[in-house]
C-alpha cells in the first residue's frame, strides 16, 4: 500500500461547515483548525500551538486571530504569532503553518504538501453541486478504514448487487458494455457502462415522467486522489447527447464522492447527489438522500470490517483480480505513483 499522496488538493469540508467557530479536522494525518474571518474568508492553520502544542481548536477566536486557550499565544490568519504573554519580544519561529484553500463547488479544498506547489487551477470540478439548475443533497460519513479501500469500493459498481442487495437499481454486468479508459497524462480514470435499452426503475419513472424503456448510462470519472464522480444518465431509448455535449432530453443524476484520508486507517467519506429534474420535489430529495446515505453506510460497515481484517494480516497478503477490477487496478497505480512523486527519494512502501 502506498502512503499518502501529498502535494494534492483534498476536500476538507463543505463550505457550510465553516463559520466563526473553530473547527478541527485531521487531513492526511495533519491536525488542522479551520475558521472564517469576520469578512468571511476561510482560514486553515496547523492545530497545534508552537508553545506547548495545545490544540488551537480548543482555544478562542478574537476578531480574526486565535488566542491559544492554554497560555495565550495569539496567531493571525497567516499563522504568525502576534502576541506572546508577559514579554514584548516575539520569537522569530513563533508561527504555525497555514494551508492554501480554495472554495469551489460547495467544498472547501485544502492543499496538503509544499505550499509553493499549490496551484488553485488544478482543483478538480464538481460544478453541479453549486449550480442552480440542479438540486443537491449531501453528507459526510466517517470511515474507519484506509482510503484505498473506499477507492477500490467505488471503482467497481458490480458490488452493488451483493453488498447493497439491490437497494439501488444498477445495470447488470452481463449485457452491459463496459469500457475502462485511462488518461495517463491527465491522470483520469473513466469507466463507462452504457445500456442502450433497459427497464426504467420505478423511482425514475415516477420522478422524471419517462414512460417505457430507457437508455441508461452509469459512468465513473475518477480524478485521483480525492474526487470521484458518478454520472448517471437516463433518457428514452435512443435519445443521445448532442455533438456539442448538450443533452436537453435526458435526466441526470451526478453522484459525487470526495475521498479524503484522515489518518492511515480512517477516511472522510463525503457524498453528494445532484439532479437536474424534479428540482423542487422534496419527496425526490428525501428519497435520494435516504437511499444514498443507506448505501454509503452499508459500504462504511463493510470497509470498517475489512480494515480490521487487513490490519491483522501480514503485509503482502494475496488478492485475486478479475475483470470487474480493471478500473480499480488503474486507480491503485495512479495513487501509488502520486505518493511516490510527492516523496522523491523517499522509500514508499508498496
Amino acid at each position, binding site marked *: 500500500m502506498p502512503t499518502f499522496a501529498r502535494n494534492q488538493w483534498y476536500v476538507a469540508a463543505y463550505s457550510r461547515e465553516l463559520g466563526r467557530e473553530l473547527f478541527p479536522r485531521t487531513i492526511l494525518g495533519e491536525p488542522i483548525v479551520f475558521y472564517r474571518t469576520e469578512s468571511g474568508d476561510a482560514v486553515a492553520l496547523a492545530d497545534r500551538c508552537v508553545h506547548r502544542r495545545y490544540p488551537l481548536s480548543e482555544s478562542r477566536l478574537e476578531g480574526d486571530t486565535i488566542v491559544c486557550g492554554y497560555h495565550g499565544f495569539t496567531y493571525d490568519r497567516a499563522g504568525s504569532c502576534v502576541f506572546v504573554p508577559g514579554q514584548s519580544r516575539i520569537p522569530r519561529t513563533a508561527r504555525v503553518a497555514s494551508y492554501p484553500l480554495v472554495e469551489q463547488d460547495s467544498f472547501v479544498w485544502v492543499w496538503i504538501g509544499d505550499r509553493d506547489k499549490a496551484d488553485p487551477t488544478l482543483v478538480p470540478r464538481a460544478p453541479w453541486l453549486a449550480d442552480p439548475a440542479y438540486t443537491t443533497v449531501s453528507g459526510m460519513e466517517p470511515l474507519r478504514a484506509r482510503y484505498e479501500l473506499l477507492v477500490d469500493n467505488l471503482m467497481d459498481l458490480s458490488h452493488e448487487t451483493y453488498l447493497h442487495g439491490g437497494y439501488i437499481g444498477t445495470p447488470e454486468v452481463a449485457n452491459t458494455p463496459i469500457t*475502462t*479508459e485511462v*488518461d*495517463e497524462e*491527465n491522470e483520469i480514470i473513466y469507466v463507462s457502462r452504457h445500456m442502450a435499452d433497459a427497464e426504467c426503475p420505478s423511482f425514475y419513472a415516477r420522478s422524471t415522467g419517462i414512460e417505457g424503456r430507457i437508455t441508461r448510462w452509469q459512468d465513473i470519472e475518477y480524478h485521483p486522489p480525492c474526487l470521484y464522480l458518478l454520472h448517471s444518465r437516463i433518457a428514452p431509448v435512443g435519445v443521445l447527447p448532442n455533438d456539442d455535449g448538450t443533452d436537453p432530453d435526458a435526466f441526470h443524476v451526478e453522484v459525487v464522492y470526495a475521498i479524503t484520508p484522515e489518518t492511515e486507517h480512517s477516511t472522510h467519506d463525503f457524498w453528494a447527489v445532484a439532479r437536474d429534474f424534479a428540482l423542487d420535489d422534496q419527496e425526490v430529495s428525501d428519497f435520494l438522500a435516504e437511499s444514498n446515505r443507506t448505501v454509503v453506510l452499508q459500504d462504511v460497515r463493510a470497509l470498517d470490517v475489512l480494515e480490521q481484517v487487513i490490519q491483522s494480516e501480514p503485509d503482502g497478503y494475496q488478492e485475486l483480480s478479475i475483470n470487474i477490477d480493471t478500473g480499480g487496478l488503474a486507480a491503485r*497505480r495512479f495513487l501509488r505513483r502520486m505518493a511516490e512523486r510527492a516523496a522523491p527519494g523517499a522509500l514508499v512502501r508498496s
Partner: protein
Amino acid sequence: MTAMLRGNTVFRIHWVLNTDRLLGVCHCGAEHESQDPVELWDWLLAHPEGHEEEPAR
C-alpha cells in the same frame, strides 16, 4: 465502441460483451486480448514493447 476520454495518452479496455474476455487498446493502436486484467495492464503499460507486431488499426 465507447470512447469518452480524448487525448493522446488514453488506454482503453473493453469488456467484450457477453464474454469473459477483455480487449485492451493502446494509444498507439495496438490491441491485445486477455482474460486477466493484471496481465492486460502489464501488456498496455509495456508500450511500445511488444506493440508493433500486433495488428494495428
